[in-house]
């Protein structure tokens, strides 16, 4: 088959969607399929099919779109003083027109990676080309939270801007022949909050390329833990939603009880300065290391003893999957899809969201009892090697691809 993987977001990118698309392309090509990757360019100036070097500059489209749809003489009206709707819609229509320009008749199947791409491609694809939509997160939920946390924007539940993302979540997820989520949590959001029909959504977990993971793990790292110290590791983008501040609060408590540990925070982001300040204020500067963005995370996991992901919201992060495959006990918060990834007391521990005291107690338990900690890690590894199997995900995905093919008449 010739397959188009498409996203409204930027490609290439450091985020998980690009990682997923890149990995999926390789897997599909190994099976003999031909795959193109469509998305926004990293500088937002064009939509491109990145693997073929095809691009259409948005400046060729925007003047007419803006004049017809959104400027003061436009026949349409939307109360949108901060141009939130205008900005998203213009970019979505650029995606629709760019996809048409590149030509969609050549594809046997289109597989989108977000709600905007799903809605966009559903409107411009030939009727006979099936559309599968993966939903990797809830754009509406994230934007609604952002509006709630930014009262100065003046956007409330009654505002068109708020309703816009509700509508896009619904129509995006409902526009495909079949929609896929990685866990029940994400499916419940779509069906219960955004009115997507139950039968529209299939649930199956992501897969991890174990061969590539172990190659990187065994390639090693120059980082070594200090003698006699156990390593607590938290790889994540340094953003608010990841809840790294919760771990630092827990470590401040842990230090008063035990000194046989260090913590490695792996990743970069807008909060790095604030988190370094928090570490300093808690006198943890000799206990917590910020390692920055690194390519050797699998090898760092092999040097570590406990993995923490104390986020406020997450779907099904690759970092947790990798930690489990590496044989680490994981301590995760009860946020989003995380409780579906860990069996409490068997493959790891689950703590309430934002609860630094509980996290401290769980870290202390795992540091105190080597046997228990290693048993949880071994259980996690045995479970992960089956559950996160790439072959399993590809088999389910190919079943979906087959199920949406038009029947021969």
């Amino acid at each position: 088959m010739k397959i188009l993987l498409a996203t409204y977001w930027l490609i290439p990118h450091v985020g998980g969607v690009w990682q997923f698309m890149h990995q999926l392309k390789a897997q599909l090509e190994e099976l003999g399929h031909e795959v193109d990757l469509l998305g926004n360019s990293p500088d937002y100036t064009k939509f491109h099919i990145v693997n073929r070097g095809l691009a259409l500059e948005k400046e060729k489209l925007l003047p007419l779109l803006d004049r017809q749809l959104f400027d003061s003489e436009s026949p349409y009206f939307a109360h949108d003083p901060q141009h939130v709707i205008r900005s998203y819609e213009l970019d979505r229509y650029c995606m629709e027109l760019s996809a048409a320009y590149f030509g969609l008749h050549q594809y046997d199947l289109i597989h989108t990676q977000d709600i905007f791409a799903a809605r966009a491609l559903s409107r411009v694809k030939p009727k006979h080309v099936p559309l599968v939509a993966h939903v990797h997160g809830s754009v509406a939920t994230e934007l609604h939270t952002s509006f709630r946390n930014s009262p100065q924007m003046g956007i409330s539940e009654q505002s068109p801007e708020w309703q816009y993302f509700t509508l896009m979540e619904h129509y995006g997820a409902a526009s495909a022949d079949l929609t896929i989520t990685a866990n029940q949590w994400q499916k419940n959001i779509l069906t219960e909050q955004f009115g997507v029909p139950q039968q529209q959504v299939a649930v199956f977990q992501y897969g991890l390329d174990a061969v590539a993971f172990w190659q990187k793990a065994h390639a090693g790292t120059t980082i070594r833990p200090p003698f006699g110290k156990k390593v607590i590791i938290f790889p994540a983008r340094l953003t608010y939603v990841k809840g790294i501040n919760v771990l630092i609060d827990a470590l401040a408590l842990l230090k008063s009880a035990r000194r046989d540990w260090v913590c490695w925070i792996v990743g970069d982001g807008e909060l790095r300065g604030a988190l370094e300040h928090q570490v300093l204020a808690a006198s943890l500067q000799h206990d917590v290391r910020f390692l920055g963005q690194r390519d050797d995370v699998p090898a760092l996991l092999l040097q570590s003893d406990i993995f923490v992901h104390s986020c406020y919201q997450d779907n099904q992060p690759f970092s947790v999957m990798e930690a489990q495959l590496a044989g680490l006990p994981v301590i995760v918060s009860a946020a989003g899809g995380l409780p579906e990834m860990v069996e409490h007391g068997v493959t790891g521990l689950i703590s309430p969201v934002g609860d630094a005291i509980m996290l401290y107690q769980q870290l202390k338990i795992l540091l105190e009892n080597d046997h228990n900690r290693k048993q949880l890690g071994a259980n996690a590894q045995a479970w992960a090697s089956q559950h996160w199997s790439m072959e399993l995900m590809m088999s389910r995905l190919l079943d979906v691809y087959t199920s949406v093919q038009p029947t021969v008449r």
Partner: protein
Amino acid sequence: MDADLKVRGILYNRIFAVNKIDTELLVDYEVWNKLTTELPADYQLPDMAALANIISVKE
């Protein structure tokens, strides 16, 4: 064919649900001609099927 040929935007009015603007705006012929050929016959902007609750046509 001149690759940089510009034509009036109103040539592509069929994809806009309402056309009240007699625009003099010029657009790239090669791009707009190719993409409108590829679009489904019933394709229209804006996406009123999804957004009718928040976008309305001015009186």
